[in-house]
């Protein structure tokens, strides 16, 4: 839309400000005008992503354009990871007859989680007060407008922040479907995810990222467990990965597993999905700085290095152990690198990222190739092998590699433990995350099993979920 808003902007921003500062200054009691020096200091605070002045009225009460633009871009990038990134990454790996079911699951989860997030999810995660779960003050995005919420990000609109966080809440349950692909009812997926958000995601996200969360080591001085997780090793990858394992055990193996070929129907789609995941992950990781500042810059670099190195490592492992590096290996390494560096990216240096990349290429490789074969569970698309193993690995490596050189915020509440006992706190967070995911998912899975049911019947599974659950075919190529 065209605007000549210039003349009106004073008005605009004052409108915004009144809303924004409502909690600080009682309506009616106006703050004093700032001095010229204070105005300059606030402009500098914008550039530095520093704290706003609270004792005087602000001349720039809205979001700061550079940071706000960045977070809008990042929110779009994280959505891009799910739609179509993850949908293609997974969709390419299933058989042709089930490709649409994967796309429908990703789309349906995006819609469902949006509604839950709008209604209560955002509030349960980011509203005060509580160390396990937030409150209801932001329900229906009440009061969540274009002003910033200084508890989380000083220069980004809170409504943008809420959408950015929502994109994380969307991709997390979507990761789970990889483990049970090709053999779960559409209704079962939606019911499982709907419950899982309340039982696992919202509490975990609040505990790790909520300003008063139990495990928010960086920002909550009173947190019991001083763990750190920059962009979601626990909340996103461990939670989905461990839940995926439980769910796929309860759902059972695909019909014909081990007897009929279940080769990916399109490695091309899988590779497109991988590339989109990589690009989108910059929004996920560097965006988690919630500003376009130096910490974002650092996260951008560590993400890139760990990912590329994990990709090479995985492919090299294949080349050595079987004589051929595969596209799926290169892609799996990319995803494993991205997953593993996620909790670490804003806390480690580029050298730390290189170390993470090597581990990220090896451990998930072993999990997918050796462990799965040894134990025999049917984690169809390796959600457990990549996300649970990678996320757990990353969480622990972060405990050892995090350094205030990479992120000075680590020196505030955690100065005593970084480089020393931090890894113990990471283990604590690991334990809680796994326990919550495993127990929560098991309970929900049985609930679904005995209500709408988990699996299609044999005939349906043989025909494929696309036709059975959606009445469509992925390709009509005659």
């Amino acid at each position, binding site marked *: 839309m065209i605007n000549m808003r210039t003349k009106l902007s004073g008005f605009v921003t004052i409108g915004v400000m009144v809303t924004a500062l409502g909690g600080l200054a009682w309506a009616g009691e106006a703050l004093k005008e700032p001095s010229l020096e204070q105005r300059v200091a606030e402009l500098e605070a914008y550039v530095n992503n520093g704290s706003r002045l609270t004792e005087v009225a602000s001349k720039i009460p809205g979001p700061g354009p550079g940071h706000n633009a960045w977070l809008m871009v990042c929110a779009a990038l994280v959505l891009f990871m799910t739609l179509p990134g993850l949908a293609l990454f997974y969709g390419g790996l299933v058989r042709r007859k089930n490709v649409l079911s994967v796309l429908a699951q990703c789309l349906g989860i995006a819609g469902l989680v949006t509604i839950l997030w709008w209604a209560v999810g955002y509030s349960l995660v980011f509203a005060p007060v509580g160390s396990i779960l937030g409150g209801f003050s932001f329900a229906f995005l009440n009061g969540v407008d274009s002003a910033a919420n200084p508890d989380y990000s000083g220069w980004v609109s809170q409504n943008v922040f809420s959408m950015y966080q929502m994109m994380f809440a969307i991709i997390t349950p979507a990761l789970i479907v990889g483990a049970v692909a090709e053999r779960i009812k559409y209704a079962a997926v939606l019911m499982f995810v709907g419950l899982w958000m309340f039982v696992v995601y919202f509490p975990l996200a609040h505990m790790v990222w909520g300003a008063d969360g139990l495990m928010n080591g960086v920002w909550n001085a009173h947190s019991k467990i001083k763990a750190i997780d920059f962009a979601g090793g626990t909340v996103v990858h461990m939670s989905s990965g461990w839940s995926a394992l439980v769910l796929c055990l309860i759902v059972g193996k695909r019909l*014909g597993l081990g*007897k*009929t070929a279940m080769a990916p129907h399109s490695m091309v789609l899988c590779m497109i999905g991988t590339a989109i995941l990589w690009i989108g992950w910059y929004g996920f990781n560097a965006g988690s700085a919630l500003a376009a500042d130096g910490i974002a810059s650092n996260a951008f670099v560590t993400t890139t290095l760990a990912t590329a190195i994990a990709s090479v490592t995985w492919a090299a492992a294949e080349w050595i152990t079987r004589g051929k590096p595969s596209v799926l290996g290169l892609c799996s390494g990319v995803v494993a690198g991205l997953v593993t560096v996620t909790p670490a990216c804003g806390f480690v240096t580029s050298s730390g990222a290189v170390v993470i990349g090597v581990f990220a290429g090896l451990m998930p490789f072993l999990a997918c190739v050796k462990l799965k074969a040894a134990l025999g569970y049917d984690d169809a698309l390796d959600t457990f092998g990549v996300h649970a193993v990678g996320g757990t690995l990353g969480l622990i490596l972060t405990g050892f590699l995090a350094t205030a050189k990479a992120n000075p915020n680590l020196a505030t509440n955690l100065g005593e433990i970084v480089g020393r006992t931090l890894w113990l706190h990471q283990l604590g967070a690991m334990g809680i995350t796994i326990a919550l995911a495993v127990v929560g998912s098991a309970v929900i899975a049985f609930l679904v099993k005995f209500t709408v049911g988990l699996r299609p019947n044999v005939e349906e599974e*043989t*025909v494929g979920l696309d*036709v059975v659950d959606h*009445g*469509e*075919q992925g390709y009509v190529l005659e």
Partner: protein
Amino acid sequence: MKKIEAVIKPFKLEDVKDALANAGVQGMTVIEVKGFGRQKGHTEIYRGSEYTVDFVPKLKIEIVLPDNAVESAIEAIAAAARTGKIGDGKIFVLPVEQALRIRTGECGDHAV
């Protein structure tokens, strides 16, 4: 020599192949086909439009073999491909007058 043409359900291919191997058959040719018969297809809906896809994906197996091997091959296929549900398919036998292995130029029963 005879030619056996068998239309079967796709997911039975492995079983049929193994059964034929046990019956001594070493070569065959397989074709993806669409079957029309008693077994019905499915319905697809795209926005306002409804399409009835009334064919069912099947595989056709073709084997040429000496007269004396026909009986056992038919039995092997029939046993391996049967599920007892509609759509299990058919087996047809046709006469073959000549056969030739391109690589060696061998003819007749030796060629198959």
